[in-house]
């Protein structure tokens, strides 16, 4: 039981994620979490504004069900399958984050500096969360997929466009992490 309650090592987690992808293929679907964002747009009436959203969203209920499960899974994992371990980050990462104003890095899943309501409800805090989400939503649809659709499914299927997309993910991520973070959080 201890092994389940402790954080799971990469060599257990990675193959289990592959299993999720393979199960969905076996069920006649493809693994892709960002597609649900488009479905939500259509459900909200976006089909009146752009042809991109004209499709029968009911055909995507299966994927929304995966999302519902994922929310429940997150709840179960945190409240029933955890021993409260802190995240075993590289001490250099913790130190670097300290210089950017993030204290107690790894003490919880997410930094309170970004996700606690007191910090969220400031102009800067709101802009970071909404803006970060906006870039993810825009970029993932432009690229035709996210980490699940490209990095996991596409690469597993040896599709070179997915490799280009993943290279893009890292170009953007590295620019943000190395060049923009000091501007956003520094000083």
């Amino acid at each position, binding site marked *: 039981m201890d092994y389940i309650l402790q954080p799971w090592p990469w060599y257990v987690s990675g193959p289990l994620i592959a299993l999720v992808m393979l199960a969905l293929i*076996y069920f006649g679907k493809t693994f892709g979490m960002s597609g649900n964002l488009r479905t939500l747009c259509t459900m909200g009436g976006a089909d009146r504004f752009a042809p991109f959203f004209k499709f029968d969203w009911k055909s995507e209920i299966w994927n929304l069900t*995966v999302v519902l499960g994922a929310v429940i899974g997150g709840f179960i994992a945190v409240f029933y399958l955890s021993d409260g371990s802190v995240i075993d980050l590289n001490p250099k990462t913790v130190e670097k*984050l300290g210089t950017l104003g993030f204290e107690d890095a790894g003490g919880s899943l997410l930094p309170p500096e970004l996700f606690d309501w007191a910090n969220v409800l400031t102009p800067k805090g709101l802009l970071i969360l909404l803006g970060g989400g906006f870039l*993810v939503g825009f970029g993932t649809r432009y690229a035709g997929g996210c*980490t699940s659709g490209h990095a996991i499914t596409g690469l597993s299927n040896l599709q070179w466009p997915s490799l280009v997309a993943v290279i893009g993910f890292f170009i953007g*991520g590295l620019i943000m992490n190395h060049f923009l973070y000091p501007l956003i959080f520094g000083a």
Partner: protein
Amino acid sequence: MKFLKFLVVGIFFGIVLTKSEAVSWYRIYEMFQFQSFHMYGIIGSAVAVGIIGVWLIKKSKLKNTEGQPIVLPPKDRSISRYLIGGTIFGLGWALAGACPGPMYILVGTGVLSMLLVIAGAVLGTFFYGLIKDRLPH
């Protein structure tokens, strides 16, 4: 209950991503700093097992549960859309520290402010749909 299997897959996915800490903003930051093998190990081993699994499925001509031959949808032949779109995605991934799967999962872990990130992502998707035809693909 034809959706039950999808609910189970989703729950399993949510548990795995939380227990692996792949949903952690800190792990994403650490990954982009190249200071831990953890995230690379997760993605790498998922792809390694995935390649073998997809190859076996294709080789065995396995039919899916709907009785149809299994085909994975092909991707467009383009570089610009994947490179530009991917880069924009990456900027957001590193800033919010969450990609679409973890966004939903983190709401389940009790971080309700993640709903703002999801709202931003829905808006971003909507904006893409509006200007899609004017972008290089």
